[in-house]
């Protein structure tokens, strides 16, 4: 009996089972909607359906994220032979009304309906998120019925590892964790490494403030991550996979654990998959909440039970990784692209996006916008299109000031570059980075030095303390930024800050320290007058403090101010 036949049977059975219902109610059950009361909505709909005796007619599914988190809880009603109807802001009352009017009488509840032609949805291209809002993340059957694990089966049964790598290389897929290293090239490096103990690691240690792309993929489509890992393992000869998830994502951990159990039960993970000699197993490792553990050498140290601090590269993980054996680390989103690429082909994937950045990117769109949430857009879309069309423009009619990409390692993009295409190289040229996908939009009321101070505070708290430039430098830079923001900074403070940016950027051991000055450098580059407006004359910051020294300094400051007035 071949695993492939099983898979088809299972998919067929699931589809037939689903087809017996006339209506399907897809309730967003992802973390954002749940915190907005989605559980009460689901319960209300379920109760009303039971009350009306519609259980044979209506299938209720708690799905993954539908994207428009600012309008949650979201509910989608799908009726055989009709267009889908999406409802936003569905509280328990609205849920009951939907059940009574739409599910019972076939009358959509117009005042809660949201057009699917809405640019928030219409402008998106879904590859990684294709199953979001469609499947129940708790059921492997639903994933398989939507084409899941077919790419793995076909790869293992009909392709050579080199063939798989070739597809990934031709697709142009680049690492989605921020660096943008070509995924196919990395796979090739591991494939060429000589060892029978190779490992692959899915990096789910997403830690940028405001970012939740990887969390959503792990929570709401966990099998996609497993399938991507298994394909990568087949292509590279890895025998073991680790998913590194931060402890702050308990739902992701639970869903992944469940998905691994289900996949093992259906012989999609484990020994001799699809009756071949390909074996692959996956384990979860839970991080203890250190941002630096997203850095690959620190992540590996953490997996091995060591203190999560980075070590010098080279050697790179593909030469010397976990327990001295070759390892490869891919971001969760990178791996989540793989099943779709294998299913739909390298050419299809490469046709999306720009020449140097193929495919799509998932962003966690946050900040001062009307529509915020999780979006997936083709690479090369402009920031303006994201903000004005998908995001619905800056909230409250305020003016756009800047967008921050790449979190604490990134930079800001000011109004004059709003028409920049969002791809790896264009963002780098602007002094920002693609990063893992955090995108925070700021309006005219936001003070950029305070933004820089916020991110520096983050880096200071998250510095692992191993190398001096990052450990001491982030602290001192935060002190200087704090002095500037609170009106204690002089021209010398600003000069010192710029020196430190250079010292920390140049000398830090790992990416965290090397990129920690980016928010400062970027805001200084585009909004320098804001910093200069904060400067006070030398010594003036001591005015008003107790003690003769302070008073004397204040006198000196006012004396020098008088002098300059006279001379002017």
């Amino acid at each position, binding site marked *: 009996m071949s695993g492939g036949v099983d898979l088809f049977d299972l998919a067929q059975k699931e589809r037939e089972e689903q087809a017996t219902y006339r209506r399907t109610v897809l309730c967003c059950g992802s973390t954002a909607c749940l915190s907005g009361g989605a559980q009460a909505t689901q319960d209300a709909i379920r109760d009303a359906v039971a009350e009306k005796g519609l259980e044979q007619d209506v299938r209720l599914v708690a799905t993954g994220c539908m994207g428009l988190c600012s309008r949650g809880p979201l509910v989608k009603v799908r009726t055989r032979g009709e267009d889908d109807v999406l409802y936003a802001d569905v509280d328990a009352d609205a849920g009951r009304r939907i059940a009574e009017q739409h599910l019972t009488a076939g009358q959509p509840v117009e005042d809660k309906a949201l057009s699917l032609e809405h640019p928030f949805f219409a402008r998106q291209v879904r590859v990684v998120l294709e199953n979001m809002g469609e499947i129940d993340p708790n059921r492997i059957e639903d994933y398989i019925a939507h084409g899941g694990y077919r790419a793995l089966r076909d790869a293992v049964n009909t392709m050579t590892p080199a063939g798989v790598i070739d597809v990934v290389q031709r697709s142009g897929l680049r690492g989605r964790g921020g660096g943008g290293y070509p995924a196919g090239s990395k796979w090739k490096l591991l494939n060429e490494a000589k060892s029978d103990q190779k490992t692959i690691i899915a990096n789910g240690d997403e830690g940028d403030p405001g970012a939740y792309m990887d969390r959503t993929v792990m929570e709401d489509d966990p099998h996609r991550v497993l399938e991507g890992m298994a394909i990568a393992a087949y292509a590279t000869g890895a025998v073991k996979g680790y998913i590194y998830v931060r402890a702050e994502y308990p739902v992701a951990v639970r869903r992944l654990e469940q998905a691994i159990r289900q996949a093992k039960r259906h012989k999609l993970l484990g020994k001799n998959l699809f009756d071949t000699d390909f074996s692959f197993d996956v384990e979860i490792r839970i991080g203890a909440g*250190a941002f630096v553990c997203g850095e690959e050498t620190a992540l590996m140290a953490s997996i091995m039970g060591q*203190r999560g*601090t980075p*070590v*010098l590269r080279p050697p790179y993980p593909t030469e010397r990784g976990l327990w001295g054996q070759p390892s490869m680390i891919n971001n969760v989103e990178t791996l989540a692209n793989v099943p779709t690429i294998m299913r739909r082909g390298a050419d299809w994937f490469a046709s999306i996006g720009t020449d140097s950045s193929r495919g799509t990117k998932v962003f966690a769109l946050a900040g001062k916008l009307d529509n915020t949430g999780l979006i997936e857009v083709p690479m090369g879309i402009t920031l303006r299109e994201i903000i004005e069309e998908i995001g619905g423009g800056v909230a409250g009619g305020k003016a756009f000031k800047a967008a921050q990409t790449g979190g604490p390692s990134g930079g800001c993009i000011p109004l004059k570059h709003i028409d920049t295409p969002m791809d790896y190289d264009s963002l780098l040229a602007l002094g920002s980075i693609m990063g893992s996908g955090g995108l925070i939009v700021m309006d005219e009321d936001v003070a950029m030095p305070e933004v820089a101070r916020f991110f520096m505070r983050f880096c*200071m*708290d*998250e*510095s*692992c*303390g*191993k*190398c*001096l*430039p990052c*450990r*001491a*430098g*982030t*602290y*001192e830079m935060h*002190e200087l930024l704090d002095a500037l923001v609170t009106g204690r900074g002089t021209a010398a403070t600003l000069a*010192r800050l710029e*020196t*430190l940016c*250079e*010292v920390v950027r*140049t*000398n*830090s*051991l790992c990416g965290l320290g*090397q990129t920690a000055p980016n928010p400062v450098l970027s805001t200084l580059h585009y909004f320098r007058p804001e910093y200069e407006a904060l400067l006070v004359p030398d010594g003036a910051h001591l005015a008003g403090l107790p003690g003769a020294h302070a008073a004397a300094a204040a006198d000196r400051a006012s004396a020098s101010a008088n002098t300059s007035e006279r001379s002017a």
Partner: protein
Amino acid sequence: MAGVNLKIDGVEIEAPAGENLMQAAVRAGVRVPGLCQLDGLSVVGACRMCMVEIAGTPRPRPACATPVGESMDVHTDTPRLREHRRVLLEMLFAEGQHICAACVASGACELQNLAAELGVDHVNFTPPPTRLEMDLSHPRFGYDPSRCVLCTRCVRACAEVEGAFTWGVAGRGRETHLVADLGVPWGEAESCTSCGKCVSACPVGALFEKGTSVGERRVPRALVSTLTARRERESHREVLK
């Protein structure tokens, strides 16, 4: 062993492959400042004092952790490197409370020597207002966290040479500090053999012998290096037998 030809500060030298730039610099008669590196211990490249510029490489690299390469053109003392080292050293001073006039290691202190070497005669950053509590629970030794530069030489000497694994690092960022065993007072650490290798490896006065006062540090810093070199020699002799 095959030799590698390279240039350090304009001096052409030949160095054995596998040697790092810090060792190779000695052949060229060049001293590269360093703090976390100690012969005989593994390399961590954490203090970033030994950063050097290599022509064609965008970023400076730590000399202690960069192997020699054919035709490398290395510069160890450019104005940029000097400036960066001075700023780094100033920040290191401002992290703790380094008061030479009251320190056991004064006169035999690598931090003090570095300050003299790099011309750091004042610190532009504000050190913390209070001293951290000393750990004087060990019968023979003491630990003053306010003097610690977090080079982790003690941690490596304890693990790699003595094999006791008593010292470890805990905390993050500015809160990073040494811990004995799982965070117990040093005197209660069951794994500690009281061998004193950590004290001898300490570049400053953070780990010290009790009963020594200002400028009285006696333990030889080369102890760890001597031990490891001797072990290596002896193990070769075993093989030859």
